[in-house]
């Protein structure tokens, strides 16, 4: 339904506020960009540390593993920024409503945040040794799921 009215009516309190849908999309894009940038920087910063701790890296597989490491860092960091966005939305709503329903949502998102932080490949168990392309796939689906949840929560 696209009824574009309002502009023509002088007594309508029409202002320049953006519509919540646009706001949601802008926020999601901004969070994804911040996450990707943070992940890239973090990957560059920790790559050497990860390589030193790994016996799997050889001259032949080095570029592949480096790309995989960077990719997984970027995806997990995007998940973390999306989760922080969700946490922000829920905490904001909680402050306004003090609803116990929101407490549940905040705890759920908090637990998911811990899960994401622990899945960052800088933690010893998930260093270069265990990185595979298939192993990153679940995180990509998590990104999609979080994007949908954030959109629905902002709507």
């Amino acid at each position, binding site marked *: 339904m696209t*009824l574009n009215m309002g502009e023509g009516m002088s*007594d309508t309190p*029409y202002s320049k506020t953006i519509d919540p849908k646009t706001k949601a999309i802008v926020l999601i894009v901004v969070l994804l960009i911040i996450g990707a940038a943070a992940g890239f920087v973090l990957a560059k910063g920790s790559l050497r540390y990860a390589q030193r701790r790994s016996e799997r890296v050889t001259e032949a597989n080095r570029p592949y593993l480096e790309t995989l490491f960077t990719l997984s860092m970027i995806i997990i960091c995007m998940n973390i920024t999306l989760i922080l966005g969700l946490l922000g*939305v829920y905490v904001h709503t909680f402050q306004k409503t003090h609803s116990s*329903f929101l407490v549940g949502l905040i705890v759920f998102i908090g637990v998911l945040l811990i899960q994401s932080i622990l899945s960052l490949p800088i933690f010893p168990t998930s260093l270069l040794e265990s990185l595979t392309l298939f192993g990153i796939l679940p995180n990509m689906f998590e990104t999609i799921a979080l994007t949908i949840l954030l959109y629905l929560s*902002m*709507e």
Partner: protein
Amino acid sequence: MNAVKRLLWWLLAGSAGGLNRGRILTAVFDRPYNANELSKVLSLDYKTIRHHLELLEKNKLIVSTGSGYGMIYSPSEMLETHYEIFQEIWGRIGKNEIKKNDTKHG
């Protein structure tokens, strides 16, 4: 928790803009309104009102009659039959909002 209750919890408390949706529902329970009247009565931006009305209609909580400028909104049958659920949830989350408005008006 029944389905309508879950839906109302999410739309009124679980997502941003829930308080404004609650205010819109309270208003249309009173009498049918069009979007323009609602934006004046609730002092909310017209675009925000349209967004919430579309969302509430999409979720089958309100129904519209008429067309264009004259389109008026009233509670759906589903919401009417579950009015006490709406009141219960709104009573719990809208409390702060209601208090704020009370002090504002006197």
